[in-house]
């Protein structure tokens, strides 16, 4: 029986058998791609981006930018595009109707059936997707960096990527995740989107959302799980290293802050666009494909700077019906530290508004950089210790991304040579 993903469409893995792959790629022109494109090939091929079967054609891009829907009506909020320069198109001699082989770091990764070659007004795209044309916005900057033309068409992966340690056990494809959820006996699951090492604000966000999603279900046996889904992608200097993010989330369960039967850590590959509300919709689609039933959205979800209202990502879901998104948003306010309550508590409950102390991932990073160990009420000691361990083991002595880390890190994934 097929698994139904986002937009009510079955999830189909677009991956060739190794035997067929060798035959299929014979004689194809090779086009090397950058990491972002390789990541998106993986996402499309495994069904993380279902119902997408490839990179978007112009009509879909236009429809996504203007209406937040694909041409078939499926809700979709961020264009997934493949860009090449005019010179590259001419040098490779590519035209509509061609099939080419995409390669990454010298290894073949996918057959790309080129169905459309088009240009698009990048400023208009930026305005539609990010609500701004300012290059300061990282998503806008990325849009302006796209080359002259976009190519649309189906992709089929020709070999499966190897997910390297320590990420191997955390990479679950949509079909694997659904199997895992069934094995665990979870009737409902609630996704926690993250690109941060967890502090107790995150922990309570997860616990509160878990309670929220649990609702009326029986409690003799736990039937709801929190699925931490860490976004692994482009890093900026000063971010936590990926290894620390994933392993520190997992240690929350190992250290008993979550029971074994209610928590799972996983990763998805994606370069954050910081599109705020539109990225929230994208995250909902991604996690719906993973088979997750609920998605928590906190304050300033996937935002950057002051481009979005802190709760835009809550409001955007008012635009969609249950038919549009087969995942339920769990809207969450802030968790903060209140010295009167003497605990991390919830904005929706605590009335000591003039006494509260907000904390954030950035603030915790700052505390750690100052050589101070945060108290366990704010930051679990097991997480703190593991950060230091990750710094030694993976970050060349630093828990935060440095140029040295970017140059020497073990890649998250590699493709085998066929």
């Amino acid at each position, binding site marked *: 029986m097929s698994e139904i993903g986002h937009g009510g469409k079955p999830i189909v893995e677009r991956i060739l058998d190794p035997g067929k792959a060798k035959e299929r790629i014979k004689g194809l022109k090779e086009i090397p791609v950058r990491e972002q494109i390789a990541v998106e090939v993986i996402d499309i091929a495994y069904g993380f981006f279902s119902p997408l079967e490839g990179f978007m054609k112009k009509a879909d891009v236009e429809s996504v930018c203007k209406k937040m829907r694909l041409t078939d009506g499926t809700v979709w909020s961020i264009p997934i595009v493949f860009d090449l320069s005019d010179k590259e198109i001419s040098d490779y001699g590519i035209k509509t109707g061609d099939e080419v082989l995409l390669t990454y770091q010298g290894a073949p990764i996918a057959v790309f059936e080129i169905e459309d070659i088009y240009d698009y007004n990048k400023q208009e795209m930026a305005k539609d997707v990010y609500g701004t044309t300012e290059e300061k916005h990282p998503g806008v900057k990325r849009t302006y960096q796209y080359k002259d033309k976009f190519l649309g068409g189906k992709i089929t992966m020709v070999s499966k990527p190897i997910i390297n340690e320590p990420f191997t056990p955390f990479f679950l494809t949509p079909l694997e995740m659904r199997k895992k959820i069934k094995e665990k006996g979870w009737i409902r699951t609630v996704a926690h989107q993250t690109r941060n090492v967890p502090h107790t604000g995150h922990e309570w966000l997860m616990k509160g959302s878990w309670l929220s999603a649990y609702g009326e279900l029986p409690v003799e046996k736990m039937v709801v799980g929190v699925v931490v889904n860490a976004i692994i992608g482009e890093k900026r*200097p*000063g971010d936590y290293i990926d290894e620390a993010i994933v392993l520190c989330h997992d240690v929350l369960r190992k250290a008993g802050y979550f029971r074994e039967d209610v928590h799972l850590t996983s990763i998805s590959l994606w370069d954050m666009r910081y599109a705020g509300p539109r990225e929230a919709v994208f995250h909902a689609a991604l996690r719906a494909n993973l088979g997750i039933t609920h998605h928590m959205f906190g*304050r*300033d979800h996937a*935002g950057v*700077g*002051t481009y979005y209202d*802190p709760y835009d990502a809550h409001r955007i879901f008012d635009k969609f019906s249950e038919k549009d998104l087969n995942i339920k948003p769990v809207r969450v306010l*802030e968790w903060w*530290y209140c*010295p009167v309550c*003497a605990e991390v508590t919830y904005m929706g409950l605590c009335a000591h508004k003039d006494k509260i*102390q*907000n*904390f*954030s991932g*950035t*603030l915790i*990073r*700052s*505390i750690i*950089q*100052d*050589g*101070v160990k*945060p*108290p366990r*009420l*704010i930051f679990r000691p097991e997480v703190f210790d593991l950060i230091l361990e990750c710094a030694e083991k993976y970050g060349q002595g630093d828990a935060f991304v440095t140029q040295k880390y970017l140059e020497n890190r073990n890649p998250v994934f590699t493709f085998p040579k066929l």
Partner: protein
Amino acid sequence: MAETFPINVWINEERYAKLQAAGLADLCQEMLAGLKVLRVPTTAEQRDELLKRYPMAKFDSATTKSIELLPKAVKDQIFDLIVEKKKVDVIAEFLKK
């Protein structure tokens, strides 16, 4: 009064010993369940200047409204200036230096 934006200088044992030796331990505030911190005020102009000089730093506009992730060496300089001047309001002098 114009809004100010704090730099949080978190106080570890070494910094606390220096503050105590200078008789300035009472400049510390307590935050987040027992952490000691010096909250160094900056004006909007000073904040922008600091962010320009130290691009690694970040103004946490979403949650804490504070300037975070200044390099440790910079925070050490600010801390030393606080000890020297015996007050937390030192950013104007710091920027002149």
